[in-house]
């Protein structure tokens, strides 16, 4: 059932002969938090990259707030309110951590918002505060640990104050304690509100994750991809009991 918020229809993407995404359709509402799961190589990252315009789809449409964004420039899509994190973190290594976030704060979308605070550094600092790495603001990004790089990714993404947040394995490489913290931050972010000078719209989210246990606690709906196609879409309970899903995961060696 299409919604006004995000509707993906008949989306396909090939890499050479490999069909990474084949005829994927789904839609989500403004307040949903969706878990996107599937075995390695299922096409999860590719799907997120198609939505953010990093990759151009071969066919299909992506409607965000009643505009077709398929094939648009990434910065325009971010400007409309979609932000993403990278699975294999991509910080600006030789820049201080705060400068990493200032880049997002300098985007036209971030500059237009924040009615009473325009100060870029202050806003970047609040995004770092939210992600829990503000004490390291002046260090070079290359000095961060794996877990802190994940948080930097989140800080960068929320600095544009998105309405739809795409998180690619936010728990990847985190210790159980760090995972717990990150899960809490994500929930808090979804509730929305003000974090210092930063305003959270309470973004809708698509979260790609392999750690299903933690994921189940956050999401209200799960979409399962396998070989680039949607094989299940429903509540967490329905999905874990779905025969096809079990087969896809077992065929890969289990969860």
């Amino acid at each position: 059932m299409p919604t006004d918020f995000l509707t993906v229809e008949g989306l396909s993407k090939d890499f050479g002969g490999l069909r990474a995404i084949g005829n994927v359709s789904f839609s989500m509402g403004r307040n949903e938090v969706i878990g996107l799961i599937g075995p390695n190589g299922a096409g999860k990252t590719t799907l997120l990259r198609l939505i953010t315009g990093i990759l151009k789809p071969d066919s299909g449409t992506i409607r965000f707030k009643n505009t077709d964004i398929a094939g648009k420039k990434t910065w325009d899509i971010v400007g409309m309110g979609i932000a993403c994190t990278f699975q294999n973190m991509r910080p600006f290594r030789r820049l201080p951590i705060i400068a990493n976030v200032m880049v997002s704060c300098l985007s036209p979308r971030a500059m237009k918002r924040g009615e009473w605070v325009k100060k870029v550094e202050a806003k970047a600092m609040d995004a770092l505060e939210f992600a829990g790495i503000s004490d390291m603001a002046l260090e070079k990004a290359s000095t961060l640990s794996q877990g802190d790089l994940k948080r930097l990714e989140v800080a960068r993404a929320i600095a544009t104050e998105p309405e739809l947040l795409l998180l690619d394995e936010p728990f990847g490489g985190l210790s159980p304690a760090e995972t717990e913290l990150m899960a809490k931050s994500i929930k808090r972010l979804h509730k929305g509100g003000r974090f210092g000078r930063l305003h959270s719209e309470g973004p809708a989210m698509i979260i790609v994750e392999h750690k299903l246990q933690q994921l189940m606690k956050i999401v209200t709906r799960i979409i399962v991809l396998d070989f680039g196609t949607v094989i299940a879409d429903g509540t967490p309970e329905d999905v874990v009991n779905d025969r096809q899903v079990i087969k896809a995961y077992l065929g890969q060696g289990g969860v």
Partner: protein
Amino acid sequence: MGMLSYYFRKSLTVCKDEVLVLPSRVAVGVFVVTILVLPLFSQSPYLLRILILSSIFAIFAASWDLLSGFTGQMNFGHALFFGVGAYSAALLNIHGHLPPWASIPLGALGAVLTGLIVGIPCLRLRGTYLALTTLAFPVILLGIIFAVPDITGGELGLSGLSRLTGSRLWDYYLTSVIMLVSCAVMWKITDSNTGIIFHAIREDELAVRASGINTIRYKLLAFSLGGFFAGISGGLYAHFMRIAGPSTLEVSMSFTVVIWAVFGGIVTIYGPVGAVFILFPLLEFLRFWPEYRTLAFALVILLILLYMPEGLFPYLRDKLETQCPRCKIRNVAKRKTCRICAAPLN
């Protein structure tokens, strides 16, 4: 009178608190003052000529750093902008009868336009491909210049441009001041929010796009700014030498600017400027032993690259200053505690 002494005292305070605390700032201060007072001690036309050309090439080297050092858009054909600046100024001066104060800025705008034109195909290219493509542009322009010798003077170039000013001394002051102002502006740009985005594009362009920044716009901005300042230096060169010839577009011109920048230290602006003021006079000095000139020059460069891969000036700076581990403010290396936050330095 009261106002005057107020400003005098204020500038003394600034000098004491901001400049004298760091060797690098003292060095910049000494450099600026030396440049400005030097003619009081010597007005030898030969010395002034070397320094004038050093100033001109310093702008050129810094403009390469702004484009290639900061945004990582490796430009191996930077002579293109120098040549366009020189030829445009010459054409405007000789055929359009415009004085230098008009022909040089207009020539620089020509270089900006060139920057936009070559920047667009360069947007999609990276690394070696970008380097090779940029290498070709000045060669293409040379071809065009040789194709229409009636307008461009062909092999001989355009000569007989009007002088910059009436005397060597005024030439010196004009070029020095333009050099100091241009380099200060370029440094300020790299130190601004725009500079942060330039840095970030060099680190990871895709991540910059995903942060909502229109990278096309910023890369073209970098090409235009690099083109503008290189065009200014080209125009100054043409009017000072009173000729704009094919040598301004030669491959060696493009390479020399890279050598200067790498020698002095890229991503600094001050590094390439300092490098020109060392290497250009050195090359002139070596003229007395023509048989060893190139060899000695190459040896100096090689030694620097081997022992100071960051470049000469960042190397010296790291020897003389340390960064506070806590507040990241720079301090004189011999201090025990940070001058701002008093944290221990080690």
